[in-house]
């Protein structure tokens, strides 16, 4: 069970035969190489045919360094060599057709790993062929495990000073025969990629088992960069990379949440816990646009996709590209940073099957407490009286409540939150992943099934994900890649309203409203329209959205000569977005106090309906590139790359609806009335040419330039706005390679790097044709009682609209201290955004919505710091990473304008969309105080907010509170985003935690979330915290006097802005891996169980009951979930 590619098998067979025949021939190249192998204790990999019959004219001296000698020997034969690792070299032709697969500089990628292991097999066979077996031998066997005790298949076992060695089998076991001369002083070297090599003296033992430690030198990693890979050590851009192991420590339904707290400069905020919509909002290095999409570009194996669409189990690695140097290769779509996801590919030359699952229960992290029925009546009466109105609830009724038990008939005190959030939010996830790998074909097949229930009835999310990633080696130079992906996500919500609306209503409707009298007998919720949130959740039908996506991708990778790779693919994504809303009506009942029975009141809503829509998206992606890597004079390393990418999207939709479904059958053909239909089509095309060149001198001085010429159909071709060029340059200096630091024991690695470049953003709002003034076809009207179609201009067009441009400068440093025990990465950057597209507000009298204009600029200044410490004390291993970043946004230019949009202001010198409103000076206490104060709004009374007279029409305080007194109050940008991530393991136990938070942030509350008896669209109650309202006897109150319909206290002001800083335990996990010795008997490689919790606690001073992570809460939200999980990982 060895890992070998067919070529190498062939090579070794041929080689072994030939060695016998030409053993004596000292001039045969094969023998020369063998001699070198012995002498330098290295192994060469080559295709035997390559050197067959090659003879040296005369035996050249092999003095001096190995590499010098090799070069001398190989060059006349037009052969070259590549160093694979410290004792492995690949030999290949510089012109000819054959060469070892994928031989490149640098440390090992998975493909290289296969190659290396296969070479060991070669070595062993060679040894046998040499007849060493004839000598007296001893047998040594053992097992190689990783730090957790799991076996390591394919680990390299080599007798030091010889070519004798083997590799471990799939159970991590090895068996080796060696000459008995080695039995005392012989040393076995155990090594495996990603782990530190370990040497063991044989000392007469026949059983030697070792546990390898991971190689903690993170800089040795290879990271995925735009259209390629690069060693972290020679990287000049700012890239955060995460591996599968890091990501899978959290159990989430949406992959975007995995990034939270794990990468500096990447701020992920979770705004909702709704099944299917609980993904995080990702912002890399602040917000890069006002109106346009500020989300980073996410490419999965070079195809643009949503991060949340990807099954975390299939993710091999994620790279977050942050600065211009790393992103400008993506040109017009890179301005907000780029996230590259690499999915798993078949590897290892064998078949492994793993099964991972988790089961979770979820509950809301935080909810406010509502007023009870009696409190509601008393406080509402107070509000009415304060508003100059009569009391609505007579004392007799309130006393009745006080003296009688709640009977849900005469005396109703409904627990709306409990009634609406009736589910436990059960979530389960199962993943089966088969890695089937042979010499020619490597396949990974992964299937995942996830279900997630919501807190409200009829709210859930189901995901089914199936992926085949296949690599087929057609010849030694040509590889075919074929990927198939199918993903079906189905979201269900109540038909009558969104869960967010239902929750806002549950928070808002008064407790005196009837919820449910019996099974299915819903009350009117004290709403004039009888809209009952419990019934809305339970009995209003369903809205289901399913978006099955299929991706077919076929690619070729061709390596005609060493160092040159030409590759390309075509991918076609189909998404069929199906939405279906079945609006069911339910009966509303009411207690009839005359007959003492529950009687039918009304049907809500009056008419039931069904509507369905199907939107099909087809996306074609074309991509081709060539990469050439070469060296000049040993120390000059070059890599150049150039390519093309094209992408086009077409979406076509149809929709239909009917009402009055007689037997409540939710099917379109059943409806009898209002038969309607709709349709639409949109197209988009993008094309880009890109190129990159890297140069480094001895891995010490690093240079890189990138450029992309990009075109987008979103802009006007006739106005010449479609194409843009986006270049970048970067440089790095690996100081630790300099002689003065080379031997330093403290600083084991040090690099400074800097980059500068420009990027674009074409992902702008305003539809697919923002350059044109297009008429909208659905502005209908009615003549003779019949619907007529109409065409109207709803949004203006702007021929001149073009890219948003961003210029980014970055300065960073990477340090490793004490051989990797401490690693530090720090970056400081500036992101300047120009030609920012803005919906420059136009006066409403213009009569249509404003077109986008490239009319602004702003800057994000920020820094990032990451400090990681790893260590091992006996069996106890741990690491802890501290991440901290900050970014400040400042608007630089808005063409002499400022944009007020309700609460938000964009003004030069301040952060984008700053909070804008009045400063406050506490609450008015007396009417005399009001009289003496600047003139406030009508109806101002004691207990109302006192606003500050900051200015006036003439720019000075004018004794009047009006719009001139509004000032910038703060902004919602998170500052000092931090994460503390810790891992520890001891024997079979492992432990992980993630704390995440924001050090400074303003957050605003309004609407049903903040104000008593306020909801714009239903009849509302208040919260417990409203009891601390101003009254003549409670003058130090937190909340102003209660009112109804008087809006003086609801004006945008500092009163409703609070500190939204928080720290949250995002994840806590404890796992146990069963010892391999127990599992070996049942052929199980690994079995691990774990328990985990997420969002277990939050420290914050924000409004009680509301989530500080959520922006600007107006009471309409779906709470973020607190989750308790049990899971297992099984591999066999």
């Amino acid at each position, binding site marked *: 069970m060895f890992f070998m590619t067919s070529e190498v098998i062939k090579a070794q067979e041929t080689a072994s035969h030939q060695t016998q025949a030409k053993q004596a021939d000292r001039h045969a190249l094969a023998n020369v190489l063998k001699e070198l192998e012995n002498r330098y204790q290295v192994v060469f990999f080559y295709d035997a045919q390559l050197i067959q019959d090659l003879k040296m004219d005369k035996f050249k001296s092999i003095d001096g360094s190995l590499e010098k000698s090799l070069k001398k020997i190989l060059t006349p034969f037009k052969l070259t060599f590549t160093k694979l690792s410290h004792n492995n070299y690949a030999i290949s032709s510089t012109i000819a057709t054959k060469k070892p697969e994928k031989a490149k500089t640098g440390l090992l990628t998975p493909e290289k790993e296969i190659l290396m292991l296969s070479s060991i097999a070669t070595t062993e066979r060679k040894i046998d062929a040499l007849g060493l077996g004839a000598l007296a031998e001893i047998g040594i066997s053992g097992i190689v495990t990783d730090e957790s005790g799991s076996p390591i298949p394919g680990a390299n076992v080599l007798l030091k000073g010889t070519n004798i060695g083997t590799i471990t089998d799939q159970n991590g076991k090895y068996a080796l025969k060696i000459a008995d001369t080695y039995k005392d002083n012989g040393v076995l070297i155990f090594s495996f990629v990603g782990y530190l090599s370990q040497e063991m003296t044989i000392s007469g033992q026949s059983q030697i088992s070792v546990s390898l430690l991971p190689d903690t030198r993170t800089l040795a990693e290879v990271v995925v960069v735009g259209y390629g890979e690069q060693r972290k050590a020679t990287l000049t851009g700012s890239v955060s990379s995460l591996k599968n192991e890091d990501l899978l420590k959290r159990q989430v339904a949406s992959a975007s949440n995995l990034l939270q707290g794990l990468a500096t400069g990447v701020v992920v905020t979770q705004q909702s816990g709704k099944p299917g919509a609980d993904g995080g909002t990702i912002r890399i290095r602040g917000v890069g646009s006002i109106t346009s999409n500020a989300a980073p570009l996410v490419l999965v194996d070079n195809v643009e996709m949503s991060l949340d669409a990807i099954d975390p189990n299939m993710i091999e690695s994620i790279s977050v590209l942050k600065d211009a140097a790393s992103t400008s290769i993506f040109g017009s779509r890179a301005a907000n940073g780029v996230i590259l996801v690499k999915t798993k590919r078949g590897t290892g030359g064998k078949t492994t099957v793993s099964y991972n699952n988790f089961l979770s229960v979820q509950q809301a992290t935080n909810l406010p407490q509502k007023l009870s029925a009696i409190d509601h009546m008393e406080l509402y009466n107070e509000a009415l009286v304060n*508003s100059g*109105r*009569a009391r*609505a*609830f007579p004392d007799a009724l309130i006393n009745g409540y006080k003296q009688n038990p709640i009977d849900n008939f005469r005396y109703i005190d409904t627990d709306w939150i409990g009634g609406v959030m009736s589910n436990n939010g059960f979530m389960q996830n199962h993943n089966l992943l088969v890695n089937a790998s042979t010499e020619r074909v490597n396949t990974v097949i992964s299937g995942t099934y996830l279900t997630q229930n919501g807190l409200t009835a009829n709210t859930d999310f189901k995901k089914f994900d199936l992926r085949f990633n296949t690599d087929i080696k057609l010849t030694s130079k040509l590889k075919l890649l074929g990927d198939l992906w199918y993903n079906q996500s189905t979201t269900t919500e109540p038909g009558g309203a969104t869960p967010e609306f239902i929750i806002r209503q549950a928070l808002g409707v008064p407790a005196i409203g009837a919820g449910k009298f019996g099974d299915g007998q819903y009350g009117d919720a004290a709403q*004039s329209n009888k809209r009952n949130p419990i019934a809305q959740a339970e009995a209003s039908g369903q809205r289901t959205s399913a978006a099955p996506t299929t991706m077919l991708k076929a690619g070729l990778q061709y390596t005609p000569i060493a160092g040159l790779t030409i590759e390309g693919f075509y991918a076609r994504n189909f998404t069929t977005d199906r939405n279906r809303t079945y609006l069911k009506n339910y009966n509303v009942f*009411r207690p*009839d106090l*005359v007959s003492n029975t529950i009687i039918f009141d009304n*049907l809500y809503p*009056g*008419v039931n309906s069904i509507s369905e829509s199907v939107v099909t998206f087809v996306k074609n992606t074309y991509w081709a590139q060539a990469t050439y890597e070469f060296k000049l004079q040993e120390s000059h390393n070059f890599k150049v790359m150039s390519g093309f990418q*094209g992408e*086009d999207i077409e979406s076509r939709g149809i929709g239909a*609806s009917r009402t009055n479904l007689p037997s409540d059958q939710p099917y379109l053909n059943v409806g009898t009335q*209002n038969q*309607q239909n709709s349709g639409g*089509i949109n*197209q*988009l095309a*993008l*094309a880009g040419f890109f190129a990159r060149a890297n140069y480094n001198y001895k891995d010490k001085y690093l240079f890189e330039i990138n450029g992309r010429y990009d*075109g*987008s159909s979103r802009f006007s071709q006739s106005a010449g706005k*479609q194409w843009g060029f986006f270049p970048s340059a970067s440089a790095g200096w690996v100081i630790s390679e300099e002689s003065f630091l080379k031997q330093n024991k403290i600083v084991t690695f040090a690099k400074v790097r800097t980059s500068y470049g420009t990027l674009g953003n074409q992902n702008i709002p305003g539809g*697919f044709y923002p350059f*044109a003034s297009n*008429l909208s*076809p659905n*502005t*209908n*009207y*009615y*003549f*003779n*009682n*019949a*619907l*007529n179609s*109409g*065409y*109207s*201009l709803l949004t203006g*067009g702007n021929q001149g609209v073009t890219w948003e441009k961003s210029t980014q400068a970055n300065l960073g440093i990477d340090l490793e201290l004490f051989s990797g025990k401490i690693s530090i990465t720090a970056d400081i950057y500036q992101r300047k955004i120009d030609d920012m597209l803005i919906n420059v507000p*136009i*006066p*409403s*009298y*213009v*009569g*249509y919505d404003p077109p986008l204009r490239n009319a602004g600029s702003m800057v994000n200044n920020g820094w990032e710091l990451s400090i990681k410490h790893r260590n091992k004390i006996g069996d106890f291993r741990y690491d802890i990473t501290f991440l901290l970043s900050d970014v400040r946004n400042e608007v630089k230019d808005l063409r002499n304008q*400022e944009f*007020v949009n309700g609460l938000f202001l964009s003004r030069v010198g301040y952060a984008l969309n700053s909070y804008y409103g009045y400063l406050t000076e506490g609450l008015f206490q007396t009417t005399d105080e009001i009289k003496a104060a600047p003139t406030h*709004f*009508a*109806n101002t009374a004691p207990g109302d907010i006192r606003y500050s007279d900051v200015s006036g029409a003439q720019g000075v305080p004018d004794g009047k509170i009006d*719009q001139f007194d509004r000032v910038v109050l703060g902004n919602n940008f998170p500052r000092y985003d931090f994460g503390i991530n810790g891992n520890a393991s001891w024997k079979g136990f492992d432990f992980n935690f993630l704390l995440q938070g924001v050090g400074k942030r303003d957050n605003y509350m309004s609407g049903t979330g903040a104000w008593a008896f306020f909801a714009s669209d239903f009849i509302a109650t208040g919260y417990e915290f409203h009891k601390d309202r101003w009254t003549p006897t409670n003058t130090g109150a937190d909340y102003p006097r209660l009112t*109804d*319909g008087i809006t*003086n206290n609801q004006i945008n002001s500092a009163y409703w802005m609070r500190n939204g800083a928080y720290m949250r335990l995002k994840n806590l996990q404890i796992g146990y891996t069963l010892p391999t010795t127990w599992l070996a008997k049942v052929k199980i490689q690994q079995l691990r169980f774990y328990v985990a919790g997420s969002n277990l606690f939050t420290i914050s001073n924000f409004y009680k009951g509301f989530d500080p992570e959520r922006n600007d809460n107006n009471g309409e939200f779906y709470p973020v979930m607190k989750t308790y999980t049990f899971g297992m990982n099984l591999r066999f």
Partner: protein
Amino acid sequence: MILTMKKYIFVFLVTVLSLTSCNKYLDLQSLDTPAVEVYFKSQEEIDLGLTGVYSAAYWDTGNNLPMPVLLDLFADTGLERAAGIASGSFDAANGTIQNYWRLIYRTVSRANVLLEGMQKGKATTIPAQFNRAEGEAQVLRAWAYFHLMSLWGDVPFYMKPLTDDEIYTLSRTPRAEIVNALVADLDNAAAKLDWVPTQRGRVSRGVALGIKAKLLLLDKRFSQAAEAANILINSNQYNLNPNFQNLFRKNTMATNAGREIMFELVLPDNAQFPASFVGLGQGSRAIAAQSGRFPLQALVDRFECIDGKRIDQSPLYDPANISRNRDPRLKWTVTIHGDTITGLAGGSLRRCVFNVLEASTRFFNFGNSTWTTATNADFSNPFGPVNNGMGTLWAKYTYDETQDYFSSKMGYAYMRFSEILLTYAEAKIEAGQLDASVVEAVNRVRRRAGMPNVDASIAGNIAGMRQLVRRERAVELANEGSRLNDIRRWEIGNLVMNTSVWGAQRAVGVVPPIPTFGAAGSAQNLNDVPDYNAAGTSRFKREQRFFDPSKHNLFPIPQRELDINKNLRQNSGW
């Protein structure tokens, strides 16, 4: 060297070719939303654009209510359940006001885009059809400006799509100038239109002239206003429909026997939305509607007794049974305690006796034609006419047994001939041209309602006729959106709005005193403004309204507009 050159040429060619094909690849235009520059070329496209202009003239703020229904609640005829604009407690940032501004200007904008764009098709379409479309768009634009000026006074005025510069620099044009321009434009439009609209819901020559009269009245050019109205009257194209109550029911609106309904909203029967929630939001809670908009007692008491005398002057008035012996229009305008009401709600026909004094009331069982007593939601519902209203309900546009409250397709009349008659009468009186034609115009309205002719004692008396016409407008046009404009034109806001909001009798057996109407010759008396201060707790009463005569006669220009365009000036006082 040559090789290198060839190489370069090759690379150059490949690049050029790929860029050319790329340009083709990237050349995408919207397929289903045509660009305005290439549209409105054919009659069909022009008509689609015209429908778009009409769709902007619905001015629904999101509650399926035509705007005039809400305008009455901003005056002294009606009340919103939650204190709204009428309370006087609002500022330039008020969302309702901003909404109307935006919605009404949308009509202006769409009409301008169409009127300019359709000139492309002028040469290739049939002139009559082209002219009709052009005329209708002009009338709708004037209709929008009329409302803008009546709410805000001087407004930004433009008759062509704005250029990029004009968007930010437009200032307010004085009302008189706008009226001048619109009067000319309406004359031009009227010439292109027939007297009868080609389809129900469209505007016609009559509407053009009607708006002209309204504009001139708004600008207090009374003799011109009278002339414009007179053209309409003398055309003999329009008359009053025989029954007042049938003007507010779907099927009889369609009949429109006298063509009294000149301009109307006709909701589609072949689509679920929009439905009208006028009836739902006015109707009784006891029959499962959701009363949230209420008439005031001041309106009720403005209706004369059947003898043509005001309630404080008529011997027929019975304070204990206020609906007895009254102007028949009262019953069809306001539902008063004791009235029997019928409505279709949630598929069931329901009938009860409207009762605001008792916790139970009488319900009719259509199955066995008997009456039974049951809980009275009008009394108990916390948001019904007792706990949140005035003890009365609107009747106009509320009772149509063919239309379910939840999916009603009841339309709404924007302009009726009776308004034209009263506009004529007011304009003639204010112009000092009181003559027999004025008395006849008023008599036509009164006679149709079943009221006696104008008493000979006031027929020649300017003050008497002025009072009568104002009273007649109030009762004839209640709940049709004219009152706000009327009290502004008559400058009586301070008189009628700076007061507590009073309602009907509140308790069984406690008959409130008859209100007083001020001394003879006083503004209060001239405008029939009842004083309820003697009523104490015998009447429903709600909040004190607040009216500042220095600013409340006009709405404030929305703050957002001033924030964006520094050339705009706010109305005084705001």
